[in-house]
């Protein structure tokens, strides 16, 4: 304890900054109280904890002014005082972390169908996959940034059509979408075997962003329906 006091003496002697010397003790006390408190404190609580005779209002005002330009400000919220990080520094208190995630098999399969069969509606995806699709699958794929809603099919119910994005092409190292291997290549690489029924076809996808004849554009509101939380803006 003594050493702390001694140290302070030394500091004050070395550095005769009149500002600090004249800084009222009440400001030190308030500073410590507000710093250590688990919750914001109101005037009444502060007054009760400070020695008698302290001009609380003046001390708070002085403290607030002193911290106004700092990285930490003395703020009053709901009639209570607390130190808070300066609002312009909120970026400092966030950390961006990359979280590696693995696509589920359903998502990967859906993505593949979208890639080959685009523009494709949900019902068409389900038809190709032979299973109905959970809502989350499209959401996850939208989150990857690899698919996007392209437009709406000119058909009853005007279902949304999906297609892949530039991010898809670049993630999978394709120069263009038409580089996706076709039927013969898939057969040649052994991914598809010979036991395929006649008439089996693999579509040749195109990444022409222009809408097809049977598509009509999305309306502005379509993207706000939560249908495409992370659709890439400006991508067409």
């Amino acid at each position, binding site marked *: 304890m003594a050493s702390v006091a001694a140290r302070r003496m030394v500091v004050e002697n070395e550095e005769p900054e009149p500002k600090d010397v004249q800084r009222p003790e009440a400001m030190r006390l308030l500073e410590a109280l507000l710093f250590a*408190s688990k919750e*914001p404190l109101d005037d009444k609580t502060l007054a009760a904890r400070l020695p008698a005779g302290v001009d609380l209002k003046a001390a708070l005002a002085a403290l607030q002014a002193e911290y106004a330009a700092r990285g930490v400000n003395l703020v009053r919220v709901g009639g209570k005082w607390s130190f808070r*990080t300066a609002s312009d520094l909120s970026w400092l208190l966030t*950390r961006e972390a990359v979280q590696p995630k693995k*696509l589920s098999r359903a998502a990967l399969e859906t993505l*593949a169908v979208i890639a080959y069969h685009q523009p494709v509606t949900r019902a068409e995806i389900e038809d190709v996959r032979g299973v109905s699709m959970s809502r989350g699958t499209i959401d996850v794929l939208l*989150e990857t940034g690899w698919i996007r809603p392209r437009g709406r099919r000119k058909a009853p119910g005007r279902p949304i059509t999906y297609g892949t994005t530039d991010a898809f092409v670049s993630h999978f190292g394709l120069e263009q979408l038409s580089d996706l291997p076709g039927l013969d290549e898939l057969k040649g690489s052994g991914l598809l075997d010979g036991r395929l029924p006649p008439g089996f076809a693999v579509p040749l996808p195109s990444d022409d962003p222009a809408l097809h004849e049977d598509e009509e554009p999305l309306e502005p509101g379509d993207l706000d329906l939560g249908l495409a939380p992370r659709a890439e803006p400006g991508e067409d």
Partner: protein
Amino acid sequence: MSAEIIQFESDVVVERASDEPALVVDVEGFEGPLDLLLTLARQQKVDLSKISILALADQYLNFIEAARKLRLELAADYLVMAAWLAYLKSRLLLPDSDSPEAQSAEEMAAALAFRLKRLEAFREVAQKLLDRPQLGRDVFARGDPEPIAEIKHPQYSATLYDLLTAYAVQRQKQALGKVRFAPRKVWSLAEARSAIERLIGMSADWSCLDDYLISYVVEPELAASVRASSFAATLELVREGVLDLQQHAAFAPIYVRKHVPGPAPAKGADATPSAAVKQ
């Protein structure tokens, strides 16, 4: 050494019977024999380095004796120390003779003094440590820290191979695994009945049912179904008295006509089949 201890212990046993006023011995207040020794040493009120180990050993042994007299349970640590001190005492009292390889009595005494000093020193620094401003007692950290928010960016990864495999596997599965039940083409009984009713209305003469059917059976694969349904419908209509029905032999063509009320149908004259069925 063992002789010494036995001697010492038998003394105690003898003395236990006596009715001397007991010393106040509080063994629970000590943190082990070294602590007890340290406390006794402090009673000598001299620098630990100048302490008389011999006197200390006597004090300790007296203490133990007193404790035993009171039948206090002493931890083994205390008894081991007593044994060691009794041994040390005998070595200090007797002139050092043989066994040059063994520690001298003075060295042993010095080692004990060292341990006492060391324990005392640790006691002091422990207290000094405790006297430091402690976090949460004397000094405080921010009471309401603002946690650093972690913004997680999910990063998905998949390879082209994953993608192509996923595509090929499901296409293949769908292509091969899809069992298509062709919709079974049947002529329902109701269809047959209404068709026959309409047909019968066209002619009151005996007609071969098959003739009627043929005009309906466009696709060959429907023939069986049409025949079966229409036959069942015909029987039903006969029962209801709407139709007459006759067949010459098993597997022969079946003739039908609109029911002719009255006696049994004329036979022979018009060379029509004879065995009319009437129910």
